[in-house]
């Protein structure tokens, strides 16, 4: 059936309209998708698939409650459609409704027991609920159906690593470069990935992959790599250059692939722990980064002038990069640190960078606050500033790693299901002895975490 004119309106066949809506959503044309979904819903408010797609669009536009309402209605109208519970379990998970997410995830598998994606979704939910054995088991079920399912391998790796089963975890962790978001992280080359065996000097390329925090964390393996393959070439982003340049071992450091030519094998930094056979017992010690003395002196003088005296200096980072896959889980609003701000004996020095510094403009708390972020040029500045504070309070972001690597006393606030590197059931970390971990006891609930942290200062 072709489109037809009816009383001046374009009438589109339902199938074509649904296809158009799905396409708009997939192409990230979310505003258009929203408008189109609203029109479709106005015309057919009880159509389950319109409700389903409109729910997805609402979710992607940040309207989670509305998304859930639409998708629940959709599922109620068509309870045998497997993709509906499979979709809504992700939305429930994003909203922190983990019981509902679990119920929907299981229902999706009941309805489509051969759908690997449903198992993968359930594995994510188990991870969020810290049911790590279940997460591994369900991820393996997904892999039984689809052995090349990179996300499921990676999810399994994260569950194993979080459980402290590092040796098993590292193997599955290798799948991370097959993830869609890892495209471009490694050079396009026919050279093999390094297997850890000794090499000639200058023939190994080490790549500072993943986030800044990972590079700082795994930078400690550089001396080990250089002991096997002397004078490796280190490729990293310009932002990391001043930091990773401090590490002993590299022959040269480059920021462009073209400058790295001549290598015979490559390895990402995050691949070194596996090759080095790292377990919780043999992690190389922290303290491998240090600020430049001149910068330490300069920032010391600046802080003397800017910071009110006689109070504990608490540095603060409250938000991470918004594009990080777990940012919703790990980032807070500045105002959520109120128990810290209510203390009379502290001065808060924010070392936050990025767009979120704007939140400091709305701060009117009791403790004095110095918004230092705008003056910070790079990680070297941050590291020098941290020399002049009593403690850093940070979310799980690169600055926490920086503080850990340079032995700065730090309190890190972590979501209920944290990134694997923070392990479970402990308030310390073998990666960084100067860090103390404050974990959520209830998913997405920060209040008691910040209260505990503020009380402990």
């Amino acid at each position, binding site marked *: 059936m072709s489109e037809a004119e009816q009383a001046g309106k374009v009438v589109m066949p339902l199938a074509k309209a649904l296809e158009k809506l799905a396409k708009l959503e997939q192409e990230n044309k979310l505003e258009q998708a929203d408008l189109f979904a609203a029109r479709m819903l106005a015309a057919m408010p009880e159509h389950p698939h319109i409700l389903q797609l409109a729910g997805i669009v609402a979710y992607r536009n940040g309207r989670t409650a509305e998304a859930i309402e639409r998708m629940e209605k959709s599922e109620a109208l068509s309870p045998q459609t497997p993709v509906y519970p499979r979709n809504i379990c992700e939305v429930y998970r994003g909203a922190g409704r983990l019981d509902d997410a679990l119920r929907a995830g299981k229902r999706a598998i009941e309805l489509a027991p051969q759908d690997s994606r449903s198992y993968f979704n359930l594995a994510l939910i188990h991870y969020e609920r810290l049911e790590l054995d279940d997460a591994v088991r369900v991820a393996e079920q997904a892999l039984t159906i689809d052995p090349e399912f990179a996300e499921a391998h990676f999810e399994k790796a994260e569950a194993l690593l979080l459980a402290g089963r590092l040796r098993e975890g590292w193997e599955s962790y290798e799948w991370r470069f097959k993830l869609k978001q890892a495209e471009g992280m490694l050079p396009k080359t026919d050279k093999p990935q390094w297997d850890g065996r000794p090499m000639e000097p200058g023939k190994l390329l080490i790549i500072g992959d993943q986030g800044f925090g990972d590079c700082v964390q795994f930078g400690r393996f550089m001396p080990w790599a250089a002991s096997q393959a002397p004078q490796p070439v280190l490729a990293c982003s310009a932002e990391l250059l001043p930091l990773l340049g401090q590490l002993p071992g590299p022959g040269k450091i480059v920021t462009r692939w073209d400058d790295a030519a001549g290598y015979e094998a490559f390895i990402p930094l995050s691949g070194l722990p596996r090759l080095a056979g790292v377990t919780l017992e043999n992690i190389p010690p922290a303290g491998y980064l240090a600020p430049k003395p001149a910068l330490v002196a300069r920032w010391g003088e600046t802080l003397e002038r800017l910071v009110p005296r006689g109070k504990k200096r608490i540095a603060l980072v409250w938000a991470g990069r918004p594009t990080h896959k777990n940012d919703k889980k790990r980032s807070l609003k500045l105002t959520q640190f109120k128990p810290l701000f209510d203390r009379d004996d502290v001065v808060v020095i924010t070392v936050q960078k990025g767009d979120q510094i*704007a939140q400091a403009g709305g701060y009117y708390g009791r403790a*004095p606050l110095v*918004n230092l972020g705008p003056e910070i040029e790079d990680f070297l500045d941050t590291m020098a500033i941290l020399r002049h504070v009593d403690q850093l309070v940070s979310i799980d972001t690169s600055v926490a790693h920086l503080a850990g690597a340079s032995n700065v006393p730090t309190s890190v606030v972590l979501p209920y299901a944290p990134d694997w590197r923070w392990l479970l059931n402990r308030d310390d970390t073998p990666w960084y002895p100067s860090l103390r971990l404050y974990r959520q006891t209830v998913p997405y609930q920060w209040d008691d975490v910040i209260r505990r942290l503020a009380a402990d200062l």
Partner: protein
Amino acid sequence: MSSVQVKEGSCPCGSLLRAARCCEADKAQWPGQEAAALLDDKAAEATKLFNAKDYDEAEALALKILDAVPNQRAALRVLFEVRKAQKRFNAADALGARLAGLPAEPAQRAQANGQYAQHLIAQGRHADALPFAAAALKAAPRAAQAHHVMGVVLTETGEVAAGERHYRRAQALLPREDGMVLGNLAWNLKLQGRLSEAEALYEKALALRPENMRGVGGQAQVLFTKGEHDRADRILDDALARWPEDRILRLLKVMADLALQRPRAALERLGPPEKQMPPELLARGRAFMQLEQPQDAVNAIAAARNIQRERTGLFYQPEALQARVARDKAYFTADRVRPLPKAGPGGFMPVFLLGFRRSGSALLEQLLAQIPGFAVGDELAPVADLAKAVPGLLGGGDYPDVLDEMLVGEGAYVPDRLREVYEAPRRRLGLMREGVRFITDRAASNVWHLGLIKLLYPEAPIIHVLRHPYDLVLSNIAQDRKLEGNAHAGLPGVARYFALQADMIKHYRGQLTLRYLPVRYEDLVADPDAVVRRVLEFVGSDASLPAALALNNQTVPEPWPAHFTVREAVHGRAAWRFKAYQAALPNLFSEVAPVLDPWVREFGYEEQGA
């Protein structure tokens, strides 16, 4: 003087000349001076008629001459004077400007421009008068009158130091002391806070010219600011006995009543509201505020604002402000400001006192004035003036984008040069006297210029006086004070203007590392010692507080800012005033609540149960 009917084809300016001979005339087609001189005899006749007060004849003849020769100087002058006397201001404006622009000998040029400048001054259009006053002065640099007019223009446009120079030059050029010049100079010194000099000068000026009514008012204001309330009262009472119908003197007396908490006397003096003008109605409103009669206060204020809206079309016009905010937000971001060069340490540390009008920053400045090591700069030579000078120093371009030029070559020295420009008037006024480490800067425009302040004084303390936003709008709407964008037109305008400022501050605080301390007006009036101590600790002063700081009556060296007029012991009468208004008039704030409530929350007032 009789009025003349407008004829078809007449110029829209109201000159009653044909448009083609007036505002739409092609100046290139005007006859040359020699041709124009052919009608000199006729023009002299028109002048004679005018001088003989035969205005109708003079006007008719001038119209005829100008229809033939639109640039005939004497006829133009006659018609200008006639239209001015008829209060046909548009016509007088057009004719006066044309007269001022005619090519002429210096003496004629000086006369034409000087007269036109005075015509504009009489309408309160001091800024418009500036180029004509300047042209008159350039044409006759040794004319006392030209300097006098320039003194008036500069004083009333805020260039008080330059105004003083011209007044003094005018007096020096005159053969003997002139009461009017000295009176105006005294007012200028009053504006500079040099009260003792102003007082002495008023004595002299009024002895020379006792009928200078405005001078008498100025003298009373000087004495009142000095705290000599009884003398000021007596002078005003005597003046009102001499000039009982003068509304300005009466209003001054009412202001004195209100400053001394005599609201009933003020109301009595103001008389029935039906005959009152907006400034009087607003004073009436403030009197009722003092009497804690919300309904009456709001009625009087609303009546004043209604008149302003209906008669002068007053309404909030935020567009220009919004455009400036958008422009400055786009430029002053962390990444853009970080690499810009900053000025080195200066001769003193400014302490910027930020706060929406009526927030209590004046009270804080009065209290700080009593602390050793502090001098008060109030609104003297604000940073906003430097912003205007920036493009010139950087070789042209639009502010603030032109600041990027500071990254190049000699541009790096511009922050230091600007800082010197900032310091010069403070040095001249004696604020940088021995022992002074801190000079307060309370310029209202600083709120827009924290970015530039960051470049000049990167680590200067910024003390932001917060007050409950409902109290701020309530207090502002009762004041007879013009706000930017005509925000004073009504409560919604004040609220939106407040939100615009709050948003600008929020932006700067987010994007720049500022040495910023918020203090609350409510805390300041409840425990002034504690708040001032916090401020001293924050700015790095180790001075101790004088005994009885809250009495706010310590001897303070001059210059004194204007707000010292209302210097009084710290009191909490105005804190949380809005609550009584909300109780009495539940809908009073309903229109502004959506604008203000987010700021009430952000400032933490909700937590305080407000």
